[in-house]
Each structure stands twice: as structure tokens, then as C-alpha cells.
């Protein structure tokens, strides 16, 4: 067992952290999240320069051959500054699916693009009725000659408005909730027959409801084999969960530090409110929640390569921890800040919102407690 970061990983953390400190200040975040695109595209290009996309990808396709620990380091820093760029759908989901199951041609084309920051992907998996079941897919893909033809709708596709490529789960066989029969496609977002309704999310991202009507996708854009996409998707989602756990710990750390600092300056009854034991113990619980979340993030990150069952248990265990801790830390941060914590102006509320939505993403506490118990 080894719990040390490599020299490369430490350098990576320093460079991400420095770039974000210098260029991703909260005041700027406030401005660009209110624009129509909801982002400042220059950061994506800079992330590419810094090698963040290449970091976890295979060397044969423009990557640096790192792994989940590199992603963890990057996402923790992203969480600290509320980064809105779709790193996880593009690099973790897209990069992960392609590296593991993509054809040589798909790898050659897309992994190089991902590593260079030349593509943005969105993951269209959820449907209005699917809730957190990744196998609940009613969107269909029918083979016609050299194409698959997609019909159906996807719900709350995060970052879709800025993406050029969609990763779509669609049913090529079986019934609506069967794991067998789910397939995964890379779909050009400009393809004929795609209609989107774009909107902002409560945590500063952008998303779309997407409708597919007779959208033709070349068969070569199938990732893996037809009907067998479920296991691929489940693994990619577990990897995304690990990445978002890291993001959540970064966000929690900011809330713990900000709240503790605030309690040392805010005075009531003539003393700093941090002198009150009722508040001290609550802030300690925030701190413990954060520390336990760091531990669970490490746990899931280091167990992603184990058997499917062990990996699923690890991911669900971590998601339960992060879901509960994130919600609690967010609520307490707002409560201890009092009225000022309720304002849009202060950053605290935005971290609270991000953490709240991270609990929902890829399944909330209840869902993952059930999934964990089912694996035991």
C-alpha cells in the first residue's frame, strides 16, 4: 500500500491550483456563468495547454498515461473553484469509454481530439422516466444498412449546449429496463433530426432536453459491441462518480474553511460567533464530514480497477458518503453564515448548490445505499 502522490501528480496539482487561483476567481465566475454560454471558453484551451485532458489518457493517443489519481487531483482543484467546464463527460466518460472499448478508428480520431482539448462531449444517458437506473432506456437505435437510426428523448443532458459530440445510450434490443440490449453511440450533435431545448441549471451549468427523430448514426460510431453497452456504461459512471467525489471534497473544503473564518470575524453578543460551543461542534462535524469524504474519495479512486462487484461497492459507498456529507456541509455553511449565506452575492450558496446537485448526479444516497446493499 502506498498513499503518496507521485512527483508528477504533485506538479499537476500545483499547476492546476495556480492556474485557477490566478484565472478562475469567483468574481469572474459570477460574470461568465450569467452569459448565455455560461462559461469562458478560454479556460478550456488553457486546460489543454496545461495537459489536463491528456493526463489520464493513454499515451498511444496523445495522452500522458496517468490514471484515476490524476483525475482525482484535477477534480479536487476544480471543486474548489466551481469549475463549470465539462471535464468529466469529455475525459472521464468519453475518454474512458473510448479507451476501453472504442474501435481503433474511434480511438485514433477522438482520443487525440480529447487530449488536445479539441472536442467537448456531453453524456446523454438519463431519460424522463429512468431516474437512476442506467438500464432504463427507451430511446431506440435500429440498424438500417450502414447506419443506426435513433429515436427517443434524453433528459437533463449536462453541458449539451456547448458540446459538439453526444455520448448516447440507446436500446438496440430487449425491453425498457433490460441491461442486455443497451448500446452506446458517439453522435455528432449537429446531426439531422436532433432537437434540443437548452437551459441553465441551478448550480451554474448548462443542460439540454434532447429529442432524436430518425437521427442517422454511422455504425462505426458504436462504442463496443451492440447490445452489450450496459457494463461499459456502469463502469464509466463509477469512474465519473469517483471524479465527482473528488470535486465534492474540493467544494466542501472551501465551505469548511470559509465558514470557520467567518465565525472568527462575525460578532454577536459582543463576541465572535465561533466562540459559541453550539457552533463549534457543528463546524467540527463539517470538518469531519470533509475528512471522511477525502478518505472515501481516495478509497474509490484506488479501487476502480478491482472486479466489477468490488468497484461497484466502492463507488456506491463513496457516493453515499459524499452525498450525505455534501448536503450536510452545504446546509451548515449557509446556516452558520446566517442571512448573508442566503445571498446570491456570496460564494457560499453556490458551493451549497453544486454539492446538492452532485448528490443527485449518477444516483443519490438512497439509490447507492440500495446498490451497495444489493452487492453485499
Amino acid at each position, binding site marked *: *500500500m*502506498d*498513499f*503518496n*502522490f*507521485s512527483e508528477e*501528480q504533485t506538479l499537476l496539482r500545483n499547476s492546476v491550483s495556480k492556474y485557477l487561483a490566478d484565472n478562475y476567481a469567483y468574481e469572474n465566475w459570477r460574470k461568465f456563468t450569467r452569459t448565455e454560454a455560461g462559461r469562458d471558453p478560454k479556460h478550456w484551451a488553457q486546460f489543454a495547454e496545461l495537459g489536463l485532458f491528456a493526463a489520464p489518457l493513454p499515451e498511444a493517443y496523445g495522452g500522458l498515461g496517468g490514471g484515476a*489519481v490524476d483525475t482525482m487531483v484535477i477534480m479536487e482543484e476544480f471543486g474548489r473553484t466551481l469549475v463549470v467546464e465539462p471535464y468529466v463527460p469529455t475525459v472521464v466518460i468519453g475518454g474512458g469509454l473510448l479507451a476501453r472499448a472504442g474501435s481503433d478508428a474511434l480511438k485514433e480520431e477522438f482520443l487525440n481530439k480529447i487530449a488536445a482539448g479539441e472536442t467537448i462531449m456531453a453524456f446523454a444517458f438519463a431519460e424522463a422516466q429512468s431516474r437512476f437506473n442506467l438500464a432504463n432506456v427507451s430511446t431506440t437505435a435500429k440498424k438500417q444498412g450502414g447506419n443506426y437510426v435513433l429515436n427517443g428523448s434524453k433528459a437533463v443532458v449536462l453541458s449539451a449546449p456547448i458540446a459538439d459530440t453526444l455520448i448516447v445510450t440507446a436500446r438496440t434490443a430487449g425491453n425498457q429496463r433490460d441491461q442486455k440490449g443497451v448500446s452506446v453511440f458517439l453522435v455528432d450533435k449537429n446531426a439531422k433530426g436532433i432537437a434540443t431545448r437548452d437551459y441553465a441549471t441551478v448550480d451554474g451549468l448548462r443542460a439540454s432536453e434532447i429529442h432524436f427523430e430518425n437521427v442517422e448514426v454511422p455504425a462505426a460510431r458504436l462504442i463496443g459491441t451492440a447490445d452489450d453497452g450496459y457494463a461499459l456504461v456502469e463502469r464509466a459512471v463509477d469512474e465519473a462518480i469517483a471524479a465527482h467525489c473528488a470535486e465534492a471534497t474540493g467544494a466542501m473544503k472551501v465551505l469548511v474553511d470559509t465558514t*470557520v473564518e467567518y*465565525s*472568527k470575524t462575525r460578532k454577536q453578543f459582543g463576541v465572535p460567533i*465561533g*466562540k459559541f*460551543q453550539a457552533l*463549534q*461542534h457543528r*463546524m*467540527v*462535524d463539517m*470538518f*469531519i464530514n470533509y*475528512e*471522511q*469524504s*477525502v*478518505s*472515501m474519495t*481516495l*478509497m474509490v479512486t*484506488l*479501487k476502480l480497477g478491482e472486479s466489477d462487484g468490488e468497484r461497484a461497492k466502492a463507488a456506491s*459507498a463513496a457516493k*453515499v*458518503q459524499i452525498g450525505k456529507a455534501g448536503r450536510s456541509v452545504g446546509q451548515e455553511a449557509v446556516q452558520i453564515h446566517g442571512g448573508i449565506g442566503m445571498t446570491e452575492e456570496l460564494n457560499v450558496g453556490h458551493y451549497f448548490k453544486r454539492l446538492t446537485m452532485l448528490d443527485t448526479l449518477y444516483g443519490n444516497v438512497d439509490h447507492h*445505499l*440500495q446498490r*451497495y*446493499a444489493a452487492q*453485499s
Partner: protein
Amino acid sequence: MNLSFSPEEEAFRQEVRGFIARACTPEMRRAQEGEGRSKESYLAWHKTLYKQGWVAPQWPTQYGGTGWNVTQRYIFNEETARAEAPTTLPFGLSMVGPVIFTYGNEEQKKKYLPRILSGEDWWCQGYSEPGAGSDLANLRTRAVREGDHYIVNGQKTWTTLAQYADWIFCLVRTDPNVKPQEGISFLLIDMKTPGITVKPIIVLGGIHEVNEVFFDNVKVPVENRIGEENKGWTYAKFLLVNERSGIAGVARSKKAIERLREIAGAETVDGSPLIETDSFSRKIAQLEIDLAALEFTELRTLAAESKGQMAGPESSILKIKGTEVQQRITELTVEAIGYYGYPDVHSLGDNEYVGPDYANGEAGHYFNMRKASIYGGSNEIQHNIIAKAVLGL
């Protein structure tokens, strides 16, 4: 960064596993389950480990430690828990031993450390007093210097297993006229000294585990003082940090959850195993998740320690979370056994049971484990420690 074990570490695991299988007798295993255990039953495993040279993994090698790294210590704990081997008592090995090799003089090290290792000396902890629980620095047991002796008068309480102890390490007040923390000294006192009286306290669960210890003009040689006079609070706090991190008990809790799963698999609800009910399986799932978080927090702490960082106030997290998990396990076990939580084992003869074997004594164990969030500095005090020392509040 990785969780894998090297071939050398796997070989070490086999060595530990083989040793335990050979050396830990069924009597030793069984002895720890009984209440009102004899002194010999506590010491049998300690002495076995001593002969093997493995009794003090946490000590520096020059004093008889094993020189194991973090992973080896982790493996050793896993294997002893897996085999349900007994635990060693912490009072000498984890508490006063490290104080002596860190703050004691050469003579003290030579005199006391070998006897702690061998199990010849049984130590108990003279910290709490009737008026000094969470507010430990408020202690009143007085030590007055007379020539080359201190004369000690006062009372300690909640003294675990003092009935067997050869020695007690004591916090005593040597200067009543300064801030409470600045007038405390750390004394080692021979329990056979005239003037010491031990009286039992029976706690929930019906067992004699703790005592009151009275000091009536007890003469203690000055050479039995650790470090400087009136600096005892520093040594006392050092000991408490070690005590806290030792309380986490991850490997033991893993084993206890395994047992809880077996019990919940044997108990039925209208013919189906309790463990398959939605509500109970979720409770166990949550418990395992909490334990996993604790395990990785402990591993992070150990990894930091192995890089030379001392265990700090963060060890309070291990104490809080470790005891919460332990208590939750006993709580769910009592929940699992249903009506057979009722029989009081003390009303039955030796080796007599009512109901399934696994239910025997579980309720008493649950009641007794409420102590865990009180001892070693109550969990509320641990919150205060983190608030002050980590968050700077």
C-alpha cells in the same frame, strides 16, 4: 498511490497468519469472551506475542518494537482480528510505555520498559477523579514533596482493571497555586505501596471492570516522576493522543460486522432472513460505509505518521468515528437478536445459555459499550479539541 500488497507483504501476511494459527489457543480466544476474566487469561496472548517479539509494533525498535511499516501493522491488525485473537491491554504498551520512552530518563527506560514488554508489570491509568472527568486538569490528588519522596493523598476513579495492576501512572497536583494545567506532575506509583486501596465499581452489563483507587499518605520516591515537576500536563496530553488513535479498532469492527451479518442471516422474519429485509440490509450497508471511511482516515493518518508527522489532534476523528461504529454494531446486534436480548447471563450458571449461542451476553455488551463515547476524553471533548487545535476556534 495504490492499495496492492507486494509479494514481501503477502509473505508477511502468511507468516502472521501461520503464527496466530499455531500460537493462539482456543482457550485464549474463548477467554476474551468471558466476563470477570482472570489476570492470567488477559496476559496469555500478551506473553505469547512477547516471546515472538511482536508485542509492541508501535514502539521504536531500540526499545523492543518490531520496526514494521504502516502496511505491516495494518496486516498484523487485520490478521489478529480475522483470527479473533485477543487484544493486548493498552495501559502499558500504548499509554505509559510511549510516555516513558519519549520523556523518561535512561534509568526509567531500563527499569520499566522491559517489564511492560514481558507482561511482568500490569499498569493501570490514574487520570480521572470524581471531580475531574472531561475537565481533567481540575484534578485534586495532591503530591507534596518531602525530601526524596512525594506524599500522595486523594482519589482516582474509573480505573480500568486496577484490581490486577502492579503499577499505576498518576496525574497528581504538585502546585495548587498556578493555572490548573501548570501544576500537574506525572508519577509512577507501585500499587503495593502502603496507603493504596482499590474498590470495585460495577458497571452496566454487570461486570467489574473499573475501580476507585484511594491514596492515603502514599510515599512515592521522587525518581518515579516522569520528566519535570509541574510539566505533567504535556506528557498527559501526549498519552491521550496515542490513546485516541488506538481506540479506532477498524479491524475488530470489520470482524464484528461479519458476525452481525451471520446473526442477521440466522434470525428470521416470517421465515425470511432478517438480513434480507430492506431496512436491516440498509442499516448494515450504512454501517459498513461508515467503517470504510474510518478505515481510510486511519490509513491516511498512519501514512502521514510513517513520513514522520506526529499523530495530532486529527486523531480525535478516529476516536469519535471509531467509537460510534463500535456502538452502532452492538446496537444493531441487540436489534438483530430480538427477544433473546432479554436473558441476563449473570442469572445463569457457568456455560449455561438461553436461546441461540450468538445471543448470549449481547445486550450486556451493548450496555457496556456506551462507555466508548465517554472514555478517552468524551466525544464532545474530542469536538472541543478539534475546534481549538485544528480549526483554531
